[in-house]
């Protein structure tokens, strides 16, 4: 680059500062394009694991939002005369003890499972991101307080704690109560993850560069830290949806989760256990839906991890 080509930088003249491109001519055109997310997306599109789990999750989501698209039968319109029918062309999945169409009930069960899974994950992620980024970014006593509280909380086993709280605190147990308990017990793991991701990102030079520019802490967290710390959180949150769905099922199965007449896979499995020999289809269908749902989210989490976290490649 030669001196004479240049004008002074800090003049207010609108004429552009001229630089020779002598050194640029040789620059190789680097072919990768777009943001890291665009790269991740391009990579994901080609992965069967992502496509399979993505399709399954979309189907399940549609099922949860518009169950009517899948079944015209009313899951609550039961006819005791049809009790415990085997699967047939009329009742694809058979009927349960009350004679309700089991296919309709299984489809409608997706709503509760997915709602709880997404709601609980969203709320615990929100708590974890708020507290975790504060603990990780500010350090010091803020971190000491938050991190130690989390550790203590973390020591409570989810299912056991869930049983105790649901039994002793609430008189009725609906979707909200169960979600609340799972949120209360679910955030510590997520928080620890956010905190360590934030702490690692905080050490990057671009964070120091932003501080040297005078950027305020809130914007540093929002613009520089969270976008770079969020990848493992997205991955873990996806897996958590699956884990929470199975936790809800486990609580309902143990009789401390949702109560009849709610429709949920956990409850259906719970009722089915007494008739496992006489009516195995009662266990089979909700069980299969539950497994496929949990599996889809975990598979999706794995696919996202591969794409978003290049360190693991």
């Amino acid at each position, binding site marked *: 680059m030669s001196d004479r080509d240049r004008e002074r930088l800090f003049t207010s003249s609108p004429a552009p500062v001229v630089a020779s491109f002598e*050194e640029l*001519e*040789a620059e190789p055109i680097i072919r990768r394009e777009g943001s890291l997310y665009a790269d991740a997306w391009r990579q994901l599109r080609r992965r069967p694991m992502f496509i399979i789990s993505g399709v399954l999750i979309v189907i399940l989501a549609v099922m949860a939002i518009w169950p009517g698209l899948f079944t015209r039968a009313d899951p609550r319109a039961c006819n005791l005369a049809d009790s415990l029918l085997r699967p047939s062309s009329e009742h694809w999945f058979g009927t349960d003890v009350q004679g309700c169409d089991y296919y309709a009930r299984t489809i409608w069960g997706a709503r509760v499972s997915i709602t709880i899974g997404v709601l609980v994950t969203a709320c615990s992620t929100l708590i974890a991101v708020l507290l975790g980024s504060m603990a990780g970014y500010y350090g010091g006593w803020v971190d000491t307080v938050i991190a130690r509280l989390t550790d203590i909380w973390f020591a409570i086993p989810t299912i056991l704690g869930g049983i105790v709280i649901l039994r002793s605190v609430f008189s009725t147990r609906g979707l909200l109560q169960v979600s609340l308990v799972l949120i209360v017990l679910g955030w510590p793991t997520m928080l620890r993850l956010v905190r360590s991701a934030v702490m690692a990102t905080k050490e990057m030079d671009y964070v120091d560069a932003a501080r040297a520019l005078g950027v305020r802490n809130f914007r540093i967290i929002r613009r520089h830290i969270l976008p770079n710390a969020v990848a493992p959180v997205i991955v873990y949150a996806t897996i958590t949806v699956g884990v929470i769905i199975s936790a809800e099922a486990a609580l309902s199965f143990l009789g401390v989760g949702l109560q009849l007449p709610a429709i949920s896979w956990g409850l259906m499995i719970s009722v089915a256990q007494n008739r496992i020999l006489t009516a195995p289809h009662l266990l089979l269908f909700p069980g299969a839906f539950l497994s496929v749902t949990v599996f889809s989210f975990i598979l999706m989490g794995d696919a996202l991890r591969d794409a978003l976290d290049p360190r693991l490649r």
Partner: protein
Amino acid sequence: MATTLSRDAVAGRPVDPAAPLLVVEDLHVEFRIEAGTVRAVNGLSYTLRRGETVAILGESGSGKSVSAQAVMGIIDSPPGFVTGGSVRFRGVELLDLSEADRRRVRGDRIAMIFQDALTALNPVFPVGWQIAEMFRMHRGVPRKEAREKAIELMERVKIPSARTRAGSYPHEFSGGMRQRVMIAMALSLDPEILIADEPTTALDVTVQAQIMALLAELQQQTGMGLILITHDLGVVAEVADQVVVMYAGREVEKGPSLPVYHRPAHPYTLGLMDSLPRRDVHTERLRPIKGSPPDLLAIPPGCPFRPRCPYARDICAAEEPPLAAVTSEHVSACHFWEEVSRERAGA
């Protein structure tokens, strides 16, 4: 060393007494990755003789480290493949050996040290134990004797109070001391060749000087051949007998270090010299090489240095320059080597 192993055979094959220590000829290594095929080493040749130092000089992505890994036989395959050429150790072709036989050559006859001693050493064992392990595994030396030998070696690489330090773990050593431990391990089996891959890059300059002096001293004692892989022109100037300058996987200039430094015949070598400030004289303005090192997935046809070369003409895009003999020992892969070497003719 007390061992009485015969050094006249390599994996059961007799050595050729007239052959040089190591001859690398037209070596090709490529990596087949998702994005395409990277020709990391594209026709590298050099000869290493006893007691001699060959420096392979290059920047990141030049293929210098890969070429050393290929000689050592430690390229991860897949994705890496040695696709051509020959590596003859005292006349015995190493590329023809079975993996088991190559393993026997590694460490025993050809040893290697790396830039990062901390990751190269096992963090959960004391360093003395790790050095002793070499004698136990390769030579079947009993435990006690191996330990004594390890301490002896640590003294030889000038680790102070070696006897007590033998029980320490790698993280308890400073960077320079760790590098000495790694050198001790590498020398434990009396190798005939030592490959040093950026041995001092991670070290402070005063420690770098200590390590280079140690290597020179050990080389003098043992007569081993040294292959030095580095990007540091200063280090090369200090120790190398022969220099191979690599760019984008190719050897672009090669010869004894004095003519290569004083009358470079390749524009890349000349550019490196011109872009380097010196501590001993005042430099007015540096003359950098323009542009960036090439993307190995998209090396342009013809001469790979062409896009950055001030001498480039049409022929450079059309034809990859062959190695031209500047003198009987000095070669340059440039169509215009005569013009380039005139640049420093007055010097």
